[in-house]
């Protein structure tokens, strides 16, 4: 029986001409685990909110949504609340009360359950999710991951038959996100709850799913079981690349806009899928038709494709070096960004920390212990590491916001810091006012200030939003606006704390372009991130922090090549074969070289 039947649903927000949803039809069976993906602004949230009447936005609508085969008019408000759980992105905003136990009970209280029934249910929830240890705590004491797990447990307290999750891991670090998704999978498997999840972390989410729906520009672009959807996406991207190549060969530049997003969509899919896309022709030859979506499947896929050749490659891998050479031949030079790149870098360090020790209070533990780190000018340094190793603290020390009690700090020129939460950056009612205000200490003339503010906004593509309240911008826009504000002082050093948090693939690559342009103009960029894929692809150097110090540092390839766990999915897939391949396209290139196929033009 169907948990949800969506029939030709179209929806437009008031005063916006473009519909947010166009003719969406879907059928979700009971107990399905559906993952909803697609670029930001593609209508994911709007669709999810149509599945929970209390949150459905106002606007003009056609088509209908059936819950358990019934129209909403047949489902009373109590059942709507009880039978459908909802968890959204921000862990903090969803918590209503101050205590963990009270938060768990909130929904049941709202539904008027008696005390003894709530007591049992709350105890059940705490046991199922392993919350006993923090049952009596203040919610303020929990970490982000714990808060989100609490939100999940609170939503489950009324024993809903369907659970809707709107980018629930957007604000979490990778470990917490994996824990959260594992809890969701447990709910799905052990309770049979229907799960509809929108997600950017497809690397983790796709292997859990029974169904994948790709939503683009308000339309269902692809839908079906994950392996089939991924294979289709790969095929579409290949078709698009071929069309583009053809268009380039002829002078005609007009490609079908519907296909335009195919490459973008592929970029968001797991590394295994991207490897598959690059090797589609070889896959057909080797009869490995199924599209891999996890690292494990990806390794098997490579085994199948390479077939008999695998013994030979293993020997090559042991002798080393071959990989690196092949890579240099295949990937375009990574240092070639910008004219000034090299010259500026030769000028030396932008920020230098030497044996820095820091603690928050006199008797507290050292958060930084003998941290030495040099960020050269004109390049991007990525600092990676688990939670609580002192990454953000290191940025605070570099920015001079926190004082080290031992060690030295040298900064060449002005420095700016983009914090994790862009909302902390804005102070004024409109973006224009905010940027002008920030320019006050820098620029004397009012008209000149306004001019510079506009120029800064145009540079990040936000000119049309200068009149908007900063908080009314979308997450990606807020981050770009915050970056524009931070860059107003034209710093020589830019520090960024988790800049890719909550961004989709397209926004991430846009951010990377901005950072590369800055580095090319001589700015020293230091970013702290959990996003290994981003660092591997875009940083010039990576440093791994552990226990308050830097454990390893190097160019991304040598840095990640040696790691077993702390490395990219593509590298984990290619381990034992090509240890130096850290990006999907590098794996593809090596594999194609090995098979004697022509290198592909695309990714």
């Amino acid at each position, binding site marked *: 029986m169907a948990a949800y039947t969506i029939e030709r649903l179209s929806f437009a927000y008031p005063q916006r001409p473009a519909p947010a949803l166009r003719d969406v039809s879907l059928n979700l069976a009971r107990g399905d685990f559906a993952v909803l993906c697609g670029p930001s602004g593609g209508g994911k949230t709007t669709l999810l909110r149509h599945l929970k009447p*209390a949150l459905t936005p106002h606007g003009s609508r056609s088509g209908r949504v059936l819950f358990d085969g019934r129209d909403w008019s047949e489902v009373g*408000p109590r059942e709507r*609340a*009880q039978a459908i759980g*909802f968890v*959204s992105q921000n862990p*903090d*905003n*969803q918590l209503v*009360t*101050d*205590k963990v136990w*009270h938060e768990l009970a*909130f929904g049941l*209280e*709202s539904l*008027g*359950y*008696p005390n003894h029934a*709530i007591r049992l249910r709350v105890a059940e929830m705490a046991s199922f999710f*392993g919350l006993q240890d*923090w049952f*009596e*705590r*203040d919610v303020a004491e*929990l*970490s982000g991951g*714990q808060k989100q797990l609490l939100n999940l447990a*609170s939503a489950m307290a009324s024993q809903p038959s369907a659970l809707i999750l709107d980018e629930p891991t957007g604000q979490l*670090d*990778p*470990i917490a996100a*994996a*824990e959260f998704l*594992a*809890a969701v999978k*447990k709910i799905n498997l052990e309770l049979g709850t229907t799960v509809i999840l929108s997600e950017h972390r497809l690397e983790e989410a796709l292997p859990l799913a029974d169904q994948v729906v790709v939503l683009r520009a308000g339309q269902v672009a692809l839908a079906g079981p994950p392996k089939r959807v991924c294979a289709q996406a790969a095929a579409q991207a290949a078709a698009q690349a071929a069309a583009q190549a053809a268009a380039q060969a002829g002078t005609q530049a007009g490609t079908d806009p519907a296909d335009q997003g195919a490459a973008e969509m592929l970029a968001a899919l797991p590394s295994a899928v991207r490897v598959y896309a690059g090797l589609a022709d070889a896959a057909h030859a080797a009869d490995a038709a199924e599209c891999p979506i996890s690292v494990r499947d990806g390794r098997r896929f490579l085994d199948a494709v390479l077939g008999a050749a695998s013994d030979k490659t293993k020997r090559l891998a042991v002798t080393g070096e071959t990989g690196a050479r092949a890579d240099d031949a295949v990937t375009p030079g990574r240092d070639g960004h910008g004219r000034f790149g090299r010259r500026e870098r030769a000028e030396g360090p932008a920020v230098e920390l030497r044996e820095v020790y820091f603690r*928050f*209070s006199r*008797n*507290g533990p050292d958060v930084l212990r003998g941290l030495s780190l040099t960020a050269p000018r004109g390049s991007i340094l990525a600092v990676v590491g*688990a939670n*609580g190793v*002192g990454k*953000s603290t290191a940025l605070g020390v570099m920015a001079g*916001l926190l004082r080290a009690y031992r060690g030295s700090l040298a900064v060449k020129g002005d420095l*700016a*810091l983009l914090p994790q*939460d862009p909302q*902390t950056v804005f102070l*004024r009612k409109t973006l224009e006012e905010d940027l002008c205000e920030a320019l*006050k*200490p820098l620029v004397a003339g009012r008209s000149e200030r306004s001019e510079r503010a506009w120029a800064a906004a145009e540079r990040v593509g936000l000119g049309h939003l200068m009149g908007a*309240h900063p*908080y009314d911008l979308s997450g990606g826009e807020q981050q770009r606006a915050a970056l524009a504000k*931070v860059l107003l*002082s034209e710093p020589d050093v830019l520090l960024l704390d988790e800049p890719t948090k909550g961004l989709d693939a397209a926004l991430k690559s846009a951010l990377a372009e901005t950072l590369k342009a800055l580095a090319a103009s001589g700015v020293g960029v230091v970013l702290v991130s959990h996003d290994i894929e981003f660092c591997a692809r875009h940083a010039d150097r990576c440093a791994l922090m552990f226990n308050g110090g830097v454990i390893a540092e190097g160019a991304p390839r040598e840095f990640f090549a040696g790691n077993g*766990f*702390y490395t990219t*999915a593509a590298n984990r897939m290619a381990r034992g074969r090509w240890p130096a391949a850290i990006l999907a396209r590098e794996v593809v290139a090596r594999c194609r070289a090995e098979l004697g196929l022509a290198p592909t033009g695309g990714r």
Partner: protein
Amino acid sequence: MAKAGQSGTGTQSAPDDEDPWTPGRPAPDREARPAGGRSRRSDALQGCHPLVALVFFALVLSGAVLFLHPVLTALSLAGGLGYSIHLLGWRAVRFALFGMTPLFLVAAAFNPLFSHAGATILARLPGGAALTLESIVFGVFAGAMIVTVMIWFTACNQVLSADKLHFLFGRLAPALALVFAMTLRFVPRLAIQARRIAYAQRAITPPPARRGLARRAREGLAIVSILTTWALENSIETADSMRSRGFGTGPRSSFNHHRIDRRDRLTLALLGLAAAVFALATAYSLTTMRFYPALAVPSPGWLGLAGWLAYAGVVFTPLALGAQEELRWRRTQSSA
């Protein structure tokens, strides 16, 4: 992504204890306010039903204010000191020595300087006013009363945590109780966000401009203003979360996990009995001494003695309960 430390649905995601964006929060060595407002030490009264604690503190605090009597005041002071030391350890001692002793001295010295009533004149002040024995003694008692009340309040603060108050008053007005719980969640969040914004702004504003007082004041105002917007903006999501969990679909119930057990009932009964004795003793004016025009302590009689005994029983109730628990614990350990 690194998944080495992943542990199923475990709860061991690393707490962001070093998050410098919320300065003020990470301070492992600070007298960590224990979870659930509980003291680190296990305490018998904290284990009782909140109603017991409420009745106890109501009795003790009103006693401390109303009974100005050498025996009763001394008992209350001793009980309060003993209990707060039991709860807070050396912090209570520090509080009593460096906070309360000066307060007591000031209060005791103030009265004879300004009040010159009383029959027994000990000396003449430089201005010619009389320094009387009665005013000195009253000052001492007033000071002792203030100090006693303060000390009981520190204990009360530890025992009657916000969630217990919430429970106690939530039964009277459930809607109000929810507002209370939401406020307790909201106010600290607002403070943290204010600190985060200030931290972020310090990183943006170039150092020389930071100095000006006028500019700093203006920035402070800007932060307050944007905080209002932030609160409204984020409360939309909170409202969504409430509605999606059935808020407003019908009458609410109010969950609590407190149970009145036999010990609670017994303790409540004894406290009620003591209150009755106090009322009787007060009706016979046995609980308050007279200061003016001349000092006079009422002769106790059997009712007065009973009152003393009951008062001693009340002020030492938490310590007695604790001692009883301790004894039982030892017994179970030795017999095991």
